[in-house]
Structure formats: C-alpha cells, structure tokens
C-alpha cells in the first residue's frame, strides 16, 4: 500500500445546523458537519435521507430555511449557484446532467466557462483574442480527456454515449473548472465492477495529484470504506453518525438504519 502523502488541512467547508423543508416535507433537519481540505468525505444513507438535497444546499441551488454554510472562511446562508461555482465548488449529478445537444469535448469545455473572459465583440471577430483563449482552454481540456481516457469519444454527441461513459464525461466537465471542492452525487451508480474501479482510480488520482477535496454520495459500501477518510451518515434528514469508515461501520444506529446485520 503506497504511503498516503496527502496533506489533510483545515476545515474547508463547515455546515452548521442546516434545516431544509419543501412545504410540509422536511428534507434536512438540523444537520451539521465539516469537510477538511484535501480529504475524501463520503455521505451515505438510505434513499430519501436528504443527501442530494444537502449537496444542492452547498451548491446554492436549494436555500435552507435555517443554518449557515462556511466555505473558505466566509459564512453565508444563501448563495447563487454560479457564485458557488465561481468560488471553486464543482458538482456531478445523480441523473447525469450533461448537455445532450453537445459533444463530449464541448461539454467539458463548458466547464471552463468561468475562466473564459473574452466578450461578445472578440468572439464575433474570432481571430486574435477569442481564438487564442479557445485554443488555450482546448489544450487544458484535452489534458483532462487524456486523464479520463475518453479520447475516442471526444466528438460524439453525449446523448449517444453509454451511461458509464456519460458519468465519466460529467466528471471531466466538473474537473475542467479546477474546483477546490468536488461534490460527486453517486458517481458510480449503474456501473459494473470494471467501470467502478476505473472511476475510483480517477477520483483518487484527482484527490491525490491535484489535492482536490472530494465529497461523494455513494451506495456501494465497498467503495466508501475503501476510499473515504471520513463518513457522514444521514437518515430521514438527520445525522445519525459521523466518523471514520471503521467507526461508522460498527455504529449500531447505522447498522439498524442502513447497513443491516451482514456488514
């Protein structure tokens, strides 16, 4: 086993007392946890526990009725999604939210949009500033395409790709933005063993090589136990456990609610 040379730093994201309701339905009830810089944090729990809703809150898409989120030292209770993105929060989605009308390459290029500064006028003329920028970012995106081993499908419209590859493209799009915090919502759902191993490898590489902090929602316990540093367990919108994988695995509440006796 290779030595873990990562530096796990201070608190990057601090979630305090978040409560979120939709009308009478309480999706999240008073949940607090933190994510340390450079770590791999997992969020697990039964379906409907509020995991995706929590990620949506961090992205600024849902606005919790109570609680605060402190990211990189700044506290806020509400943020617009594009502000969150500008601050370095990346995201993949449970149901693959790729832009079906575009190719793989274009989809990943959209991830670079925050770094592209040329305006309408430059774009109209194309030669000069806009072209230079486009080429520069194209180079970066090609590096990501190499990294994720998807060169062969770069011009294919993503709607035609098999599910596993779509998820990989989505990861590429999130990586293109060079995020500090990467939120992954069930990145391995629907994949076979090989695909899962590939995905794990990519996620770990991203974490170890680029130092990106990862927060992932996942149902595959083997994966969770293998790659995460700490695990948060949610059930019915509330927190029922928070700690290292081994601690969580042995926690009776978690076993009752989610894991079952066999684990």
């Amino acid at each position, binding site marked *: 086993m290779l030595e873990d040379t990562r530096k796990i730093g201070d608190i990057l994201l601090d979630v305090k007392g978040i409560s979120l309701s939709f009308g009478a339905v309480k999706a999240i009830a008073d949940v607090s946890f933190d994510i340390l810089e450079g770590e791999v944090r997992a969020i697990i729990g039964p379906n409907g526990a509020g995991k995706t809703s929590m990620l949506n809150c961090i*992205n*600024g*898409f849902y606005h919790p009725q109570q609680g605060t989120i402190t990211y990189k030292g700044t506290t806020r209770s509400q943020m*617009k*999604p*594009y502000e*969150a*993105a*500008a601050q370095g929060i*990346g*995201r993949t*989605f449970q149901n693959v*939210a*790729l*832009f*079906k*009308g*575009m190719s793989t390459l*274009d989809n990943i*290029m*959209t*991830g*670079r*949009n*925050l770094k*592209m500064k*040329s305006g*309408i006028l430059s*774009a*109209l*003329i*194309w030669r000069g500033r*806009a*072209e230079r*920028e*486009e*080429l520069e970012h*194209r*180079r970066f995106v*090609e590096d990501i395409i190499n990294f994720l081993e998807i060169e062969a499908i770069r011009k294919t419209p993503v709607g035609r790709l098999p599910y596993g590859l779509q998820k990989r493209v989505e990861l590429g*799009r*999130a990586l293109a*933005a060079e995020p500090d915090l990467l939120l992954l919502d069930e990145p391995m759902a629907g994949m076979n063993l090989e695909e899962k191993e590939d995905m794990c490898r990519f996620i770990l590489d991203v974490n170890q090589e680029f130092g990106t902090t990862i927060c992932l929602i996942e149902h595959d316990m083997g994966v969770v136990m293998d790659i995460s540093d700490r695990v948060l367990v949610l059930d019915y919108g509330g927190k029922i456990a928070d700690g290292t994988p081994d601690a969580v695995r042995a926690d009776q509440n978690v076993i009752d609610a989610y894991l079952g006796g066999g684990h």
Partner: protein
Amino acid sequence: MFYRESGQFSSSYKQDQAIFPLRQDRIGVYLILLVAFFGVPLFASDYLISAIFIPFLILALAALGLNVLTGYAGQLSLGTGGFMAVGAFMAYKFATGMPDMPIILVLLMGGLMAAAVGIMFGIPSLRIKGFYLAVATLAAQFFIEWLFIKVGWFTNYSASGVITAPPLAIGLPFTSLEYVFDTSTKKYVFTLSFVVVLALATKNLIRSHIGRGWMAIRDMDIAAEIIGFRPLQTKLSAFAVSSFLCGVAGALWAFVHLGTVEPEAFGINRSFSILFMIIIGGLGSIMGAFIGAAFITLLPIFLNNVPPMLGMNLAVDLVVHIEFMVFGILIVFFLIVEPHGLARLWSIGKEKLRTWPFPY
C-alpha cells in the same frame, strides 16, 4: 468515394476547430460563394433576383436571428416580426434624422436598437420559461406593432402612413461622390455581403464559449447555472444578438426589398413564418436557417407555378389555402420524421456519402 475524410488529419487544435475542417466542405462553400457573388448577378434575371434571391437572403438573416434565440438558446420567441419592425423603423429614423450617416451604419444602428428592445423583453425570461415565455414575446410583438402604428414620431408624422425608405447609397465623406445601389443586381450584392458577414460573425459566436453557454442553458439550465453560467447574462446575450440580427433583417427588408417602411410587413404572420423556417430548416443550425428560408420562399412560387403547368388553373385564394395546408402538413411531417429539420437530413446524407458507393 468523393466525400471521404481519410487522409485529412488535423495536426493542430486550430485546424480541428475550423468552421469547415473537411476539404470537401471548404471547396463546396467556396463554390457556393462564387456562384452567389458572381454567377447569380451575371446570369439570373432581374425578376429572379428581386423576387426570390433578395427576400431569401433577408429572411435567412432573420431566421438566423431566431435560430440563435430559439434553436441555440432554447428560448421560444414569437416576437420576431416585432424586432424586425424595430430595426426597420429605427433605421428609418436614423437615416432621416442624420442624413450624413453612412447607410451601413444606419442599418447596424437599426439592429442595435432592436437589440436593446430585445434585451428589455428578454428580462422576464429569467423567471418565465417555455410556453410562458412565448406569451411574453407575443406581448412584445403586439405592443410593438401597435406602437409603430399609433406613435407618429416613428413615421416622422407622415400623413399617409406610408413612408418611403431612403435610397441605398454609399458616399465618400466630405465629397459629393456617391455610389447608389439602385438596380436589383447591386441591391443583391449589397444584401449578400451583409448577410455573409453577419452569418460568419454568428458562426464565430456559436463556436465560442458564448455559444456553448446558450446551448447549455437550452439543454439543462439548472446544471448550467451550477457550473457557473450566469443565466440572466446568457439569456440576455441571446436576446440581444438574436434581436440585432432580426433588426438588421427588418431594416434590410424595408430599405432593400420593399422600399417602404410599413408595420404590416412585420406582423404576427411574419413571426410564424420565420419560426417555420427554422423548424423545417433545423433548430440550432446556421445552415438550417438558410435551408428553411429557401424552402419557405420557394414554396409559394412552386405552388403558384406547378398547377398551371399540370393544366390545373386554381383561383388565387384557393392557392393560398392550399399553401396553408401544405405548410401544416410539412411541419408535422418534419417533426415526425426529423425534428432536427432539413439540416440534420443533410448531415445524415453526408454521412451516407462518406461510404458511397460502398454501403459498408
């Protein structure tokens, strides 16, 4: 056999990103431009030019505008006619108010004014989506129509309500030298140049990050926002560019094609007609705008001329009704067979061409 890309490898990203990376496509486009700039003026009759080619070009420009908004950015708009009207009337105001302004600038200013109006009516698009937005654009359409009829300032208080467009002339500043585009051939070349330049500029926009932003908002606006696209700016830029193109088209329609500036030319029927062009031609495709415009321009002529050739003489209004029916059938047909329009059928055709004559 002829349309193969083997042997043509891009060795740089710059090559890969060219508008026409394949040599065959490039040759094709150069040929078309050659025919358009030289063949048509030399060989086509005046009637053909003024009745078919000029309206086709101008409507293609308007269709391009609508395609930017509806095809690329996914914002359904039924207000195209209104934006064209703004371009036409504001160009008229500039031409009459500042007679020394070069005609090209006049037309572009008409477009800019239309862009401003487009941005205004685009602001609701942040809250309103889909069909609801279509209704907001209808509000724009009907309001603008009413405005230009009721408010005399736009027509320079003309008593008859029919205002003649100023002549198309390019002058050398501070001299009395001027070149007047008075024949239909000259007008055609003028219009063609405008349309080609604007189409190229639009293509550049589409392949930049701005175009990607539009398509992202169209495909999944929530995901687009979460990865950093600012929805209001993206949508408004689409409205602005789209209305600019429609505005210039409207100004050209009045100045070059009609010779008069009248609100009736830009009514709700115009909006629908242009929507049909992009549905039939292909949403989200620059070529589609041209194909669709060609189709809709040629169809009435076809319907007018074919029955007599077959020996059937139909009353004029019956022809109009049949036109309606044929439009309707074609729209439904295209939506069933190829929702992405003729442009997609064209690309499928090209793909088949690659392996022709060997089917495997």
